[in-house]
C-alpha cells in the first residue's frame, strides 16, 4: 500500500515537474543567450492559458484528431509512471519493462503522426513522415543501448537493472560508456531537441514535431505540449536511473526517500543544464544528416553490446 502511494506520488511528481523542467531549460538557454526569458513557470502559464481557450478544429478532421491528444498524453504519462524516480522498487515497474516503455512511447508517437496526417495539409504529412522516419532509426538504437545494460543485469525490468547497478562493484565498464553515449544521443533526438529538431522553430521546412501539431489548439494543444515535456523529463529520469542511480531509495523510509528526492532533483538540474548548454552551443543539422546521426548512435550502442560480450562476459 505504502509503495503504491509512493508510486502514485512519484508519477504525479513527474507530471507536475515536467513543465518546470522544460521551463528551466528554456530559461537557462535564454540566460546563456543574454535574454531574460519567460522564467521557469512560463510553460505552466502557457498550459493554463491553452486549457482555458476554446478549441478550433480543422473541418473534416476526424475523431482521430480529437482522440490523439488523449492517447499521446496518457501513454506518455503511463510510461513516465513506470520509471522509478525516487524509490527503486515501485510496483508499477512490474507492469512495463524497458521494452514496454519504449513501446508505450511508440504508441504515443503513432497517434501523434496519425493526427498529423488527419488534417490533410502538406505540413501534417511532412511532419508525420519525418517523425516516423527518424523514430524508426532511433528506436532500435535506443533498445540496443538498453540491451547493453539489461544484458549485464540479465533483465529488462527497470527495478532489477537499477538494483544491479546499485549493488554492482564500481568497475569501469566500457560497454556502459558506449551505452550512455548512445542513450544521450537518442534522448536528444527523441525529444526533438537541437541538433535534430528545434522545438521553438516554426519554419515550415525544418520543423518535425511542430508540423504535426500545427492545427491543434486549446486543450488539445495543451495535452500535446505537456506530453512532450513529460517525455523530456522521462528520458532524463531514465538516464539517471540507468547510469547514475546512486542514492535512490531501496526502501520506503522517509529519510531515504527525501534524500533520494533531493539527489534526483540535483541530478536533473545537472542534466538539463548540460542540455541547455549543448543546445546553445550546437546548430540544428540539415534534415538528411539526421539519419547519419541516428545510425551513428545505433552503431555506438551495438559496439557497446559487442564490447560487453567480448570484454566483460567473454573475459
Amino acid at each position, binding site marked *: 500500500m505504502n509503495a503504491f502511494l509512493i508510486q502514485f506520488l512519484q508519477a504525479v511528481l513527474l507530471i507536475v515537474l515536467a513543465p518546470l523542467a522544460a521551463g528551466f531549460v528554456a530559461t537557462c538557454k535564454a540566460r546563456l543567450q543574454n535574454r531574460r526569458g519567460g522564467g521557469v513557470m512560463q510553460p505552466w502559464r502557457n498550459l493554463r492559458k491553452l*486549457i482555458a481557450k*476554446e*478549441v*478550433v478544429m480543422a*473541418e*473534416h478532421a*476526424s475523431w*482521430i484528431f*480529437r482522440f490523439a491528444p*488523449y492517447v499521446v*498524453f*496518457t*501513454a506518455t504519462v*503511463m510510461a513516465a509512471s513506470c520509471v522509478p524516480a525516487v524509490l527503486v522498487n515501485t510496483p508499477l515497474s*512490474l*507492469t512495463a*519493462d524497458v*521494452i*514496454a516503455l519504449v*513501446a508505450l512511447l*511508440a*504508441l504515443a508517437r*503513432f497517434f501523434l*503522426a*496519425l493526427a498529423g*496526417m*488527419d488534417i*490533410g*495539409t*502538406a505540413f*501534417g*504529412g511532412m511532419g*508525420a*513522415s*519525418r517523425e*516516423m*522516419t527518424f*523514430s*524508426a*532509426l532511433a*528506436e*532500435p538504437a535506443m*533498445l*540496443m543501448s538498453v540491451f547493453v545494460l539489461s*544484458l549485464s543485469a*540479465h*533483465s*529488462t*525490468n527497470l*527495478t*532489477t537493472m537499477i538494483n544491479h547497478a546499485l549493488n554492482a562493484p564500481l568497475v569501469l565498464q566500457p560497454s556502459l560508456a558506449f551505452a550512455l553515449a548512445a542513450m544521450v544521443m537518442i534522448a536528444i533526438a527523441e525529444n526533438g531537441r537541437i541538433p535534430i529538431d528545434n522545438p521553438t522553430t516554426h519554419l515550415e521546412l525544418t520543423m518535425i514535431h511542430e508540423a504535426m501539431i*500545427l*492545427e491543434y489548439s486549446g486543450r488539445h494543444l495543451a495535452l500535446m505540449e505537456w506530453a512532450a515535456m513529460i517525455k523530456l523529463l522521462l528520458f532524463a529520469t531514465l538516464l539517471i536511473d540507468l547510469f547514475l542511480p546512486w542514492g535512490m531509495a531501496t526502501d520506503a523510509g522517509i529519510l531515504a526517500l527525501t534524500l533520494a528526492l533531493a539527489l534526483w532533483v540535483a541530478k536533473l538540474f545537472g542534466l538539463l543544464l548540460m542540455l541547455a548548454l549543448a543546445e546553445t552551443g550546437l546548430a540544428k543539422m540539415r534534415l*538528411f544528416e539526421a539519419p547519419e546521426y541516428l545510425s551513428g548512435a*545505433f552503431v555506438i550502442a*551495438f559496439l557497446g*553490446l*559487442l564490447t560487453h*560480450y567480448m570484454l566483460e562476459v*567473454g573475459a
Partner: protein
Amino acid sequence: MTAMALAITACGTPLLASAIAPALGGDARRSILCLLLAISGLSAMIGGIQGLLTEPTSLILPLGLPWLPMHFRVDGLSAFFLLVIGTLLLPVAIYSQGYLKGEKRLGALAVFLPLFVLGMLGVVIADDAFTFMLFWEMMSVSSYFLVTFEHERLENRKAGFIYLLMAHLAGLLILGGFAVLYAASGSFEFSVMRAAHLFPFWATAAFLLVAFGFGTKAGVVPMHGWLPDAHPVAPSNVSALMSGIMLKVAVFGFLRVVWDLIGPGDFQWWWGALVLTAGSASAVSGVLFALQQHDLKRLLAYHSIENIGIILIGLGLGMLLAHFGHPLLAALGLIAGLYHTINHALFKGLLFMGAGAVLHVTGTRDMETMGGLIHRMPATALFFLVACVSISALPPFNGFVSEWLTFQTALMAPQLGGALLTAIVPFSAAMLALAGALAAACFVKVFGVVFLGHARSEHVAGAHEVDGWMKLGMAIPALLCLLLGLLPVMFIPLMDAIPASLLHVSLGAHLYEHGWLWLTPVDATHASYSAPVALAGMLGVGGLVYWWLHPKGCRIRRGALWSCGNPHIHARMQYNATAFSQPLRRIFAGVLRPEEHIHVERPAHKLLTRRVRYTVHVGDPAVRHLYQPLARLTLGLAKRVRHEHQRGIHAYLAWTFATILFLLVAFA
C-alpha cells in the same frame, strides 16, 4: 466430440462445399459456400482448442497408397495450427458472404476455395509424408486457381504462373526432404521418421531441403519474389487466407519436419543461425519494400514477408538455444514464434479484409487515389486501425506481446559459441526492433493516406460503408487482436503442450507466477509485462484528464485549415504515399535502388513550368537478381535445344548412328 472428429468435420465440410456449391446457382451457392466454410472454421477452432488440451489422437483412413493408408494425427502442434486456421477462417467465411455478393461467375471460386481450405487443414493433421504432400500440393494448386481467378488481366496470369512455379519448386524440395527421411527411416509414417536416428549428413540434407522448400512457400527472402505479385491479385477474402494462413502452414511444415521429425537432438549450430539470419533479412527487407509500395494489397503482401521473418527470428533463436542446451529458453523462443503466428494470422487477415472492403467500394487498390475514407466507412476504418496498431507492435494489442517475447528470448540468451553467434543474437534483436519501428512508420502511412485527410479522387469521395456481414467478419479478428494482446497469460498456457512434446520442457509454472495480470516469461525479476494494468492506467488517466478538461458548455469550433495564406488548398497538396516514404527511400537507397523519373512540362519557355511529374519505381531485387537471370538461362538453353530440332532428317539419322557407335565404344 474428440479433436480428431472435429478436425475431420472441418476437412469434410469444405469437400462437401466444393461438391455441391457449383451445382447451385446465385445467392444460394454463395450462402452455402460461406456457411459450410464457417462451419469448417468453427469446428477447426474448437477442435484445435480440444487438441491442445487433450492427448494426441490418431486416425487411419484406407485411402492413398495401398501399403500406406492415410494417417492423420492431432497433436499439440497440429491442434495449434488448426486453431490458427479456424480462427481466421470463421471470420473470413462470414466476410465472404458480403464480399462475394454481386460476384457474377462464382464457379471456379466455389470449387477451389473450399479445396484450398481443405488442403491447409489436411496438411496440418497429416501424419505421413504422402498424405502431407498430397494435401500440400492440393493447397498450392487450388490457390493457384484462386490467384488466377480474374484471369482476364495479364498481370494476374503472370503472377499465377510465377506462383505455381515457385509452389512446385517448394513442393519438390519438400518432397526431396521427405525422401531423405524415408531413406533414413524406411517408412513414410511420421511416427517412424520421428523415431529414426539420422546421420548428421542426411539430417543436414533433409534440413536444407525442407528449409528452402518451406521457406520458398513462406516467402522468406530471397525466395520471396512470387509473393508480392500473387497475394494482391487474388480476391481479397482469398488474399486474407493466403497471407493469414497459408504462409503459416508453411511455418507449420517447417516446425513439423525440422523440430518434430528431425528433432532438436539433431540440430547443428548453424541451422539456427541460418534461420535467424533469414528471419532478420526477411523482417527488415520485407518492411523496407512494403514502405515503397502504393498498391494497398501489395504493401500488405510485403508485410507478410516481414512478419514471417519475425516468426523465424523466434524459431531460429529457439533452434540455437535448443542446440546449446537451454531447452527452457528454446521453448520461450518457440512460443514467441507461435504466438506471433496466430497474431499475424489475425491482424493480417483483418488488414486484407479491410483492404478488400476498400477495394470493394472504391474499385481501386491504388493508395494515391484514396483518402478521407474514415468519414465514408467509419467501422471499416476502426477495425483497420486496430489491425494497424497491432501489426506495428504497439501495446496493448497482440503484436507487441509476441515481439516482446522474442526480445526476451534474445536477451536472455547466454553467450553461445563463438563471436559470430554471439553477435548474431543481439543483432537479430536489433533488426527486429528496426522492423517494428519501420512497420509503425509504414502503417501510419497506410492509415493516414487511405483513411485520413481528403479524398484524392471522385470515386473514393463517393465511397460508402460495407454491409453487415463484412463488418462482422472484420469485427471478430479485431476483438481477438485486443484480447490476445490483453490476456496473453490466458492463451500461452494453452500452447504449452507444444514445447512439452517437442522439447520436453514446459513454461507452465513461470508464466503466471505473478497472477494472471502479469506475463512473466521466466520470472518477474527478469522481465514482466501487464497489458491490462497499462490499459487500465491509461484509461484512468485519460478519464481523469477528460473529466478535468471538459467544463460544461465547452464547445469545438470548426475552422479552415491554415494554408500559409494560400487561398485555396486542395487534396493534391497532401502528402501521398510516395511522398511519405521519400525520406526512407532516400536513406535506404542503397538497398531499394529506386528508379526515379522527373518529367517537367515546359511548353512555352524553359522558365515557364506547367507541370512537374515525379514517378518512382522500386523493383524487387529477388526478381531482378534471382528470378530473371534463371529465366533467361532456361530460355537460352531452350533456344539452343530448339535449334537442334530444326535440322534435316539426315542429322537425326546421324544422331542415332552416333549414339549406337558411342554405346558400342562405351560398353564393349
